[in-house]
């Protein structure tokens, strides 16, 4: 199926851009006329994915975070968050709730939140090449 609309943007992995990234995605998805709850769920999932790229993907340097948002006629939205950072050596382990390499102040819930706030989550990663997180959610139209 072809998307009815699409946006792509990228930004350096400064943590101050986390707020911008989720607000930009949320603003684009407003076209689907989503409920506030659905939109907030996707906003949260995007925030988690972008934070992972910044905290883990580019943990030792500043790199570029790439975001693509596609929306479809049936209310489906696909958000892809990519980085060209260090990659995840063991995706299965990284996705376990409470697992974190981020230190004491990180809850280790990022992937668990993405999973529960979206309809599907796909993660691909190559060490020293980068990570790609694809979030899919179906938005029910407000009546």
């Amino acid at each position, binding site marked *: 199926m072809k998307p009815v609309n699409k946006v792509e943007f990228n930004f350096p992995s400064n*943590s101050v851009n986390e*707020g911008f990234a989720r607000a930009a995605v949320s603003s684009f998805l407003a076209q689907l006329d989503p409920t506030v709850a659905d939109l*907030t769920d996707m906003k949260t999932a995007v*925030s988690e994915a972008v934070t992972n790229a910044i905290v883990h993907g580019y943990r030792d340097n500043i790199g570029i975070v790439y975001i693509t948002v596609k929306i479809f006629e049936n209310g489906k939205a696909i958000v892809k968050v990519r980085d060209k950072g260090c990659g995840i050596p063991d995706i299965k382990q990284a996705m376990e709730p409470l697992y974190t390499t981020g230190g*004491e*102040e990180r*809850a280790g819930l990022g992937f668990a*939140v993405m999973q529960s706030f979206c309809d599907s989550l796909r993660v691909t990663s190559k060490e020293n090449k980068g990570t790609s997180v694809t979030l899919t959610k179906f938005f029910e139209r407000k009546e």
Partner: protein
Amino acid sequence: MSVRLLYKEGVLTARLSGEIDHHTSAEIREEIDETSQKLKPYCLRLDFTEVPFMDSSGIGLILGRIRLYKFWKGHVVLTGLSANVSKMVELSGIGSIAVIEKEAG
């Protein structure tokens, strides 16, 4: 993001205002910890009434403060949770180690 701290009779209330994410939680943490370590209150009340958005960084923030307050046998209370913040708190299971007040205030 801003934090307003109020101390009264052993209770430190932190009124959080704005979105909580990995970026903003660093600033909140510093402000709360500086005063907490000085006063060692027996209770920290985190007031989320003016927090429209929080991702899992907020859970890390709460967990970290629970850990800190354990040093002097204090505890942490969460109050004023919006639907979004509530959903995140429920998912994390943090309710078993922090007190959650249903009414804001």
